[in-house]
Structures are given as structure tokens and as C-alpha cells.
């Protein structure tokens, strides 16, 4: 049963081939026996899950169930869950029992989905490997010596290893798409503002966006139908109407104009990755799409812009952790300054401290114009590049990540090399566009993903293209050995 997609499980529940309690039990048991191999969960919530499953079964019996009722999901531990520990992968919040639900959690609860646990992640979502988590690294189910990517690494590993049929994630610079690529699953980063940020612990507020990690584009569409929408509690929530993301999955892609950025397929890109992505694009051409070379001339500046903008916003957002109202507090502070400095110094890990300090520096008097203002100006140039390109093509395709999953500890002492893993993903966050990563093949038995980028609020079209691609390919159906 755990092999089935969300869409297949939904049918099984509605045909009463299995109850939600039985289904939830299957996944809980599987998590109990396999989580020690992967470390993809920070907390399991069996009692909460079974109570939700019982309620879902009542709805299924009396005919009031929706398409997601009774289906298990795991939440990234960045989403506040009322009465359940919400750690954000940090010692700072190891003792934090959220006093309210994030809007995403509230919406998925209302849709009838079952929360089976909270997934591991890089501390405060700052990382591309899950190695910065206070709870230890997550292992990639395709090779236990390798990282699953990050920051939503626990969510990606759980879905890839069939410990959960779907999971939530967040993406500030690639944190949904990069782990999806490294774990051979589907990950959608929606348009900025499409999914509410209320109760989603903030890292960089102008970049953060929640989205689904699933096995297929069809499953992502089902989850998005419940996740997306305006929320008055999020001041940057988009008022645009929400489409039924499942309605156009099977639409034809004949005549679709695909742009291939010359800058993404330059001589720096590994030839195997390049060939796999080109072969994947060829599948879309067979379905009637046309390709065109395009330019994104400022794309090489996205990493430097990101490492000014994201740390600046992070230093401001993380100022709230002061050891006074919630979270970690140091022992025996001698005065108020000592309370602040030691609570933060002891509660945050190394990568989080690096980013807070970079952010503090670029925002400080005398440096603001040279760094922060400059980065914001170049951010506009990057956004304008996308807008110019998207005036001539419908979507843009490239690799999600420059290569497959790297080994645990390989890049841990080299932050800059780690940052460069996100070279194809961060520009999308800077521009605020939606993008989906789908499995596109294997290199040395490790998954490689393809990224499809669209214009603002084109999630429905992106999922349609991804779905049609998955109808003619079977990369997404491959299961890591030891988890089938």
C-alpha cells in the first residue's frame, strides 16, 4: 500500500479498500522501523495521527470526505503545529511547543489530511544538505553515505523512501527543489505569496515560500489545491484566484515554447547532467513542444545577491530569539546582555550564526548602500531577465542542481561550495517565480532532477507539463533499494 501515490491511495480510501486508520498505521509502522536508517523525522505524532484518521474514517463513511481526506502527510518542522514540538531543526527551539497552527497546517487539517510527524531540516532552513540540523544529518535513501539535500531534506527523504506519501517543505533558495532533485521526487516551489507564510518560521521573508514534496506532479496538484490561497494573516499573501490544479493536468502541451538558458548549459555544467536534461526536454518535444535558446545574462550574480539579501532578512527575523519569551535560555545569566548573547550564542548553530553575522554586517551603518541596496538593485536585473525571456517563451527548463547528491561531510567545511549547489534555484526565489523539479534520470545510480520555471501564478501549467512528462517517463517510479 505504501508504494501507491497519493492519487491512488485516495481512490483506495474512497472505494473502501482500506480505512484511513489502517493506512495511517501502515505508514507509522514503516516510519518506526525505517526512520533510524534515515533520521528523516524529528518527531512522530502517532496518537494525533490516529485521532485524525478516526475522524477521517467517519467522514468517508458518511460521504462528506474530500479527495485528501484520510491521507497521511509529514510536515517540515518549520510549520507551527499546535501542541506539537516545532523545532525548526534548532537547539533554540528544541523546547518549543507551538501554541498555534500555521495556515498551511490548518488548511491541510481541514482537507482531512493526517499529520504523521515533523520532518528533519537544516537549522532554520539554512543549508543545502541537512547537515546543519541540531538533530543530525538525514541520509539519502539512494545512498546512505550521501546527503538528501536541504533544507527540506527530511521531507524529501521520507517521500522518496515511502515513509510518507507526501510532505510539506519550504523553499527560500531551492530548499524544496534541490532535495527533490537529489532524492528523485517531485517538488513544487509556488509563486511568492501563493501559499501563506503565517506560522511558517521565517528565514528570509521576501524569499520564503511553502510548497509540496510528492512522488508525482498529480499528487503535488492535489496537495496544492488545499495549501494555496489568500490568507489575511500573511501581509504578503497574494489575492489572485486559486485554480483547481488538477483540472488541467492532462491538457496538451502541443506548441508549448520552452526556453533553454545558454547560461545554464555552459561548459561548467557536467556533461552527464546536461545530456539527461536535454533528453528529458526531447520527451517534451515529442509531445509537441518547441525549444528556443534564451539568455539570462545576470544569472551568475544570483548567488552573491542571495548571500546579501537572505542573510540581511535572516538577521532581522532571528532577532526575536532572545531567551525571554520562548525558546532556549542560557543558564544563570549575569545580566540582560549576557542573557541575550549567551542564549543566542548557545542556541544557534554555526551556519545560522554565520548568516546572522553577514546580515548584521551588510545592514550596518556605512555598508548598507554598498551591499544591501546594491543587491536589491541587481535583484531587479535578475527579475527583468526572466521577464524578458518569458515574453518570448512559455516556460524555462534547466537542471535543478549541478550534480547528484554529495557525500556527508564533503562540503561541510566549505560553505561557499555548498552555496554554489543552489546556482540554478536561487534566482527563481529572487524573482518570486514558481518552479517545479521532476526526476529526469540517473548518474552513477543517483537521481538528477529537471527544473521547469514558469511565469507568476503559472503553477497549473507547470504541473500540467510535469504530469505529461511523467506519463511518458518512469524515472519518478524508481524506488531506492532497501525501501521497496
Amino acid at each position, binding site marked *: 500500500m505504501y508504494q501507491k501515490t497519493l492519487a491512488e491511495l485516495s481512490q483506495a480510501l474512497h472505494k473502501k479498500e482500506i480505512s484511513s486508520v489502517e493506512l495511517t498505521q501502515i505508514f507509522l509502522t514503516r516510519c518506526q522501523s525505517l526512520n533510524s536508517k534515515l533520521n528523516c523525522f524529528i518527531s512522530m505524532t502517532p496518537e494525533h495521527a490516529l485521532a485524525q484518521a478516526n475522524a477521517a474514517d467517519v467522514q468517508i463513511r458518511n460521504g462528506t470526505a474530500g479527495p485528501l481526506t484520510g491521507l497521511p502527510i509529514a510536515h517540515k518542522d518549520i510549520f507551527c503545529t499546535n501542541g506539537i514540538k516545532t523545532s525548526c531543526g534548532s537547539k533554540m527551539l528544541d523546547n518549543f511547543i507551538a501554541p498555534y497552527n500555521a495556515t498551511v497546517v490548518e488548511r491541510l487539517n481541514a482537507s482531512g489530511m493526517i499529520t504523521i510527524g515533523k520532518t528533519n531540516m537544516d537549522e532554520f532552513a539554512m543549508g543545502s544538505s541537512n547537515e546543519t540540523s541540531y538533530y543530525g544529518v538525514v541520509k539519502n535513501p539512494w545512498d546512505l553515505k550521501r546527503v538528501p539535500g536541504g533544507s527540506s531534506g527530511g521531507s524529501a527523504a521520507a517521500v522518496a523512501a515511502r515513509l510518507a506519501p507526501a510532505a510539506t517543505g519550504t523553499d527560500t533558495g531551492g530548499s524544496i527543489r534541490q532535495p527533490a532533485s537529489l532524492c528523485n521526487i517531485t517538488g513544487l516551489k509556488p509563486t511568492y505569496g501563493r501559499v501563506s507564510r503565517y506560522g511558517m518560521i521565517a528565514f528570509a521573508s521576501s524569499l520564503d515560500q511553502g510548497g509540496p514534496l510528492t512522488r508525482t506532479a498529480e499528487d503535488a496538484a492535489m496537495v496544492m489545491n488545499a495549501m494555496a490561497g489568500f490568507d489575511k494573516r500573511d501581509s504578503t499573501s497574494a489575492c489572485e484566484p486559486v485554480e483547481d490544479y488538477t483540472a488541467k493536468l492532462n491538457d496538451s502541451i502541443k506548441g508549448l515554447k520552452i526556453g533553454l538558458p545558454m547560461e545554464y548549459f555552459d561548459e561548467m555544467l557536467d556533461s552527464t547532467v546536461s545530456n539527461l536534461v536535454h533528453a528529458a526536454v526531447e520527451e517534451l518535444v515529442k509531445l509537441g513542444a518547441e525549444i528556443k535558446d534564451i539568455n539570462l545574462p545576470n544569472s551568475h550574480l544570483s548567488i552573491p545577491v542571495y548571500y546579501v539579501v537572505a542573510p540581511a532578512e535572516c538577521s532581522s527575523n532571528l532577532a526575536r530569539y532572545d531567551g525571554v519569551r520562548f525558546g532556549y535560555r542560557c543558564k544563570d545569566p549575569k545580566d540582560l546582555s549576557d542573557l541575550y548573547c549567551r542564549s543566542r*550564542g548557545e542556541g544557534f548553530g554555526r551556519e545560522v550564526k554565520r548568516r546572522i553575522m553577514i546580515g548584521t554586517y551588510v545592514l*550596518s551603518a556605512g555598508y548598507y548602500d554598498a*551591499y544591501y541596496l546594491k543587491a536589491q538593485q541587481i535583484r531587479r536585473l535578475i527579475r527583468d531577465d526572466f521577464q524578458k525571456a518569458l515574453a518570448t517563451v512559455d516556460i524555462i527548463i534547466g537542471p535543478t542542481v549541478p550534480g547528484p547528491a554529495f557525500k556527508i561531510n564533503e562540503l561541510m567545511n566549505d560553505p561557499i561550495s555548498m552555496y554554489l549547489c543552489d546556482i540554478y534555484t536561487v534566482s527563481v526565489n529572487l524573482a518570486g517565480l514558481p518552479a517545479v523539479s521532476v526526476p529526469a534520470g540517473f548518474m552513477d545510480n543517483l537521481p538528477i532532477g529537471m527544473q521547469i520555471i514558469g511565469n507568476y501564478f503559472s503553477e497549473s501549467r507547470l504541473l500540467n507539463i510535469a504530469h505529461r512528462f511523467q506519463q511518458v517517463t518512469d524515472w519518478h517510479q524508481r524506488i531506492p533499494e532497501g525501501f521497496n
Partner: protein
Amino acid sequence: MSLDRTDIEKIAWLARLSIAGDDIPNYARDLSNILDLVKQLSAIGTANVKPMAHPLEITARLREDKITEVNQREHFQKIAPAVDNGHYLVPKVIE
């Protein structure tokens, strides 16, 4: 761009972060490397380019001036490290 011990101590104080003395050289190295990565931005011409703070460039919404939140002091203080009689406790500030 190279940051020294004094720079790191100053930034750490501004950010209210205690950093162990023997760890300061590591932060100096890492932060200097990040600033080196960022340095290439200074060579890009941006005259007349408006800074972009937000991808959708929306303006803040207004709502009716009505109370929408209820007082949940006890609920929120349950997770505080130290409270007394509805107050958050911190080390003495005024002698």
C-alpha cells in the same frame, strides 16, 4: 575583503551573539570568504535601477480598525522560560 578579530567582535556584539574567543578566527575566515563572493556585485552598473525589495511589489493592505485578536497571555506564557504573575522575568536591569 578581510575581516579581523575586532570586526568579528563588533559584529557579534551588534547581533548579540556570544562567540568563543578561539572560534573568532574561523568566523573571520568564513565571513571574509562570503564577502569575497559578494564583492563581484560592486562591478555591476546599476545607475537608475530601482532597488527591488519584494518580488510582487504589492503595497500593504489596510483593514478595518477593529480588534481581531483576543488576549491569550496565559496560553503564550506557558512556553516562556521564566514568568511570574503575568510578567516575563529577566535579570535585573535597574539597580
